[in-house]
């Protein structure tokens, strides 16, 4: 004998499945998602910190100091001095516990004797970029007396570019 009892069970099953699927969707969508807006905030904080650090490194400590620390670093290519000074600036907090930021710095200049092309060389870094990080880019123009591709030292506008990221 054929009756419709089986059909009833099928529809109940489909309805229950749908409810379970949407319950799962509800649970999954309720988990916290790091929105693009939130990422922008932490990027902004890092950018501000890095920009401040480079700006302060490019400020002489008094009027009788002819050069800023960043000028000296670029002119002497002193990676150790840059590493120590930059990390001090970006990691120091008002509490005892310091921050733990990583960076990679590059110096870029225009080579006027070689086809007026843009050249760069690594200045310093405390960790290599592997591609999985989410770094921000901060820059500072420095007036430095260096050869930068020419035969004589002269005042040149040099771009110090730093990629800065947090673990």
């Amino acid at each position: 004998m054929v009756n419709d009892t089986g059909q009833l069970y099928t529809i109940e099953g489909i309805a229950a499945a749908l409810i379970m699927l949407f319950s799962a969707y509800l649970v999954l969508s309720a988990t916290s998602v790091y929105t693009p807006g939130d990422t922008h905030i932490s990027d902004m904080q890092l950018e501000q910190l890095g920009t401040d650090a480079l700006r302060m490194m490019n400020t002489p400590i008094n009027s009788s100091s002819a050069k800023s620390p960043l000028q000296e670093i670029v002119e002497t290519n002193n990676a150790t001095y840059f590493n120590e000074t930059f990390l001090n600036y970006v990691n120091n907090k008002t509490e005892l516990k310091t921050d733990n930021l990583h960076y990679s710095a590059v110096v870029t200049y225009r080579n006027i004797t070689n086809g007026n092309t843009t050249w760069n060389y690594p200045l310093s870094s405390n960790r290599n970029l592997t591609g999985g990080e989410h770094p921000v880019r901060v820059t500072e123009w420095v007036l430095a007396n260096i050869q930068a591709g020419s035969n004589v030292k002269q005042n040149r506008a040099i771009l110090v570019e730093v990629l800065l990221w947090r673990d």
Partner: protein
Amino acid sequence: MTDNAGTLSIDFLAGFTIFLIAFIYVATLIPGLFIGLQSRTIDYDAVAYRTGVILVEDPGMPYNPSWENLDDYHKGEVLRFGLAVSKDTPNILSSQKVDRFFCTTWTYPDDYRSRVIFGNYPYMFNISFQPAGSNLTRSIGDDPPDEYGYIRRVVKIKGISNASIDDSTIQTYKFNSSDNVTTDVFSIHLNFTNLLEDEPNPAYQINPYNDQIMVNVSGMNAKVIPIPPITAPLPTNLTAIQICRSKPISTNLHPPVVCFANFTSPIVDNNQVDLPYPIENNLSLIIPPGFITTDLADANTQLYFNLTFDHYNAGILSEEKGYLNSTGSGPFEYNYDPKNITLPKLQDGVLEVSVW
């Protein structure tokens, strides 16, 4: 017998399921509509950022005379806090402004909220500053909770200039009397034209209006003692500090110096004292920031602080020879010569703002 009672149940079940699905779907969509508005952390971060910018990149309001020079009776006139030396020197903070900002005359949170946090929402906050190499953190506000907005700014704080006049300086510039006199006068000269124009960058400028002027004299008796017969120097009082000025105008390039006021309660040896004040071998005189106003001296003024010393023997005004005196040599120049002055120096620091 077959009836249709079960069919009704299936319709109800199907309809209720569809309703439930639609309800859940709409309910999950609604928060997404407000995702850009509902995040309190984002709002707190924005307020913290704004507060950091105001503190670090703005000199505050009023600017001239600067807000940090207003005393407690006039603190209601302060419209906006700002710690920068000037609007042209972001991240360079004034030590006087930092001192005034963290002083106890302001009430947390009301005085700060209306002058640096702004907005209608009653934000709570913590603002902390620490100079580099120091464990001393200056802070206002409570400890932040777990969730809060935050910004950290790297800054430099402008130090104060000071003149150190020791016995070798006194002898080099002949800052001592060659005659027996009962009263010695030592003059300190502030050339406003040179102070304000020779160093145009406010970060390094000695600004007599807003910066503290400090003169430390040591070895004042050095020239007195070796003069035979070797005797102890007479007791000496700082009896007056006259404020004098000359102001060049086109018809008179060398106008006379006119003394027009007395510095009656100066800061000597780090205390505000009344004159006469007994002087030993050393003297530290501070002209506090805000003491010199544009009414006292404009940008072309030559300002002199004439220190008068009287010598006493058994309470009677007596003659002394070789004491600190600039009458014959000309005044001590408070300028940018590193031989005379320790110039303002920038010191690293970090400022943090937390808002919740």
